[in-house]
């Protein structure tokens, strides 16, 4: 199954292009984490609002910090947010979705559906604001808000798939030999939803990076360090005075990464969904 998916993905030019873009950005992020790139993001290395030059590729900001260094560091921030949110919300969505689907129409299913319905009813940015308010400026408020809301879509899709898988013969066989429910769910049901989780994870990753930008602008996002969202928020004050460094650097990095991820997510979806490929 995974092998087929990979073969189909490999034959999709756009998907491979997207994958390469994502890999390049991931490489930058790893270099930042291991201390090879972007370490000078907070030091004042020039005058205020220098224009682009050989030493400052995108110029400097209000405080004289190098914008290119900050953009590189922002890549690592984007991946940190994306990875944490994607990992946690996908695991949460997979577990609750699987339980919900396995015990469909039981009380556990009803409770999980109710929680999903409630979370889906609160507009996201307000929910993020409420969580930030309750956690009083905790650095993780943004991550928590995204994880708590993003799992619902994953859970809904997994629930539907588990209800389908449940009726297969091999599940019936596993039940007939008396395996406990949880063992069946973890060993025989969830692994068969892996391809769906992969597609859903790529979609969540895009949403997390996109949302971080908006939340940082609203003052609910990254607290320490620098992110593309903070740079764009900074640029909103500067562009009126004709300083475009922050806007161009953060805007284009963000665009290229999101574009790569969107292409990758699309072709993953095509590669996994055989029905659509046959069409």
């Amino acid at each position, binding site marked *: 199954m995974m092998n087929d998916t990979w073969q189909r993905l490999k034959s999709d030019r756009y998907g491979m292009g997207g994958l390469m873009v994502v890999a390049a950005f991931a490489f930058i992020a790893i270099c930042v984490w291991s201390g090879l790139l972007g370490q000078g993001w907070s030091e004042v290395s020039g005058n205020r609002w220098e224009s682009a030059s050989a030493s400052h590729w995108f110029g400097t900001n209000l405080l004289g910090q190098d914008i290119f260094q900050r953009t590189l560091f922002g890549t690592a921030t984007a991946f940190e947010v994306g990875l944490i949110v994607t990992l946690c919300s996908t695991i949460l969505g997979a577990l609750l979705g699987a339980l919900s689907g396995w015990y469909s129409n039981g009380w556990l299913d009803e409770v999980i559906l109710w929680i999903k319905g409630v979370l889906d009813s609160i507009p996201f940015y307000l929910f993020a604001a409420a969580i930030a*308010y*309750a956690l*009083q400026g905790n650095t993780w408020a943004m991550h928590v808000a995204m994880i708590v809301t993003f799992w619902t879509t994953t859970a809904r899709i997994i629930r539907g798939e588990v209800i389908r898988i449940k009726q297969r013969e091999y599940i019936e066989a596993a039940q007939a030999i008396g395996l406990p429910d949880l063992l069946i769910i973890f060993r025989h049901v969830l692994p068969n939803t892996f391809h769906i989780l992969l597609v859903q994870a790529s979609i969540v990753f895009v949403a997390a990076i996109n949302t971080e930008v*908006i939340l940082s602008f609203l003052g609910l996002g990254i607290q320490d360090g620098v992110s593309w969202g903070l740079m764009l928020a900074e640029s909103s004050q500067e562009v009126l005075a004709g300083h475009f460094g922050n806007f161009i650097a953060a805007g284009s990095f*963000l665009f290229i990464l999101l574009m790569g991820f969107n292409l990758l997510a699309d072709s993953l979806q095509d590669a996994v969904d055989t029905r659509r490929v046959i069409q």
Partner: protein
Amino acid sequence: MTRSYVARRLLYGIPLVLGVTFISFLLMVYFGPDKTYELLGKNPTADQIREVRQALGYDQPFMLRYADYLKQLVTLDLGLSDSSGESVSSILGRTLPISIALVLPGFVLGNIAGLMLGLMAAWYRGKWLDKLIMSASVVGMSVSFLVIIIGLQILLCTPYGLNLFPVRGWQVHDLGSYLYFVTVPTLALVFVTLGYNTRFYRAVMADEIDRDHIRTLRAYGASPFELMFKHVLKNSLIPILTRIMFSIPFVVISGSLLLESYFGIPGIGLVTFNAITSGDQPVLKAVVGLTGVLFVLALTVNDLLYSLVDPRVAKP
């Protein structure tokens, strides 16, 4: 639509409303910051502290405080704003029309344009026009809302671009001034929703175009225009209406939050933004609770409309 179905739908909404209000109560009232010492002067006596805590309701048991919050939401008696001292319900009443006037044109245009592009892409599926539209919508989906807003502002509102519209503000008294202030936010909203809308509408239409009866009509020589609007569009009304109903509260709140705080437009979004930055609890808890309740209401009405359009839905 049977009476029992209506009753069932309404009953189903109750746990949702309770859940939404409970979460906003828990986050903002119960776990929210203790406001006692903000309201007291220096060196308060034990009596003063007790008095303020009593006024804030901190000495009440949990369920009673929740019931009190519910009562506030139902009676729209939402207390006074911490920062301005104005009553929250009058703030909301004053600012909501501005937000609707701001967001409505962009919302409508974004959906109509997405519908048209989706129709074209679905009709020419696999042809170059479809590929062009779909590639453009992926590009559109990859641009952040904030980048769109700043970019449009540079292009349309500053001397570095065309300099046609105001940088920020909202002094609306007639149609001309309305158009003057609403154009750039509207364009931003259309751009940010267009990619998602187009993809959604194309997917819905493509499913419908594949149906046998459409192919038959096509073979009989029905004009594309008649086919699309009379048969395809009509049959895909349910998913389209659902999407529109669902997105209204989100676009009004989320869209206005960003647009108004960026352009300094005194609508409900700016009020919320200021409440977020200053920690104005009465405003925040009212906005979160009320939008949640409104959303559940929209959901219920939507389901009832469903069963009017398609009676099979109401069958148990």
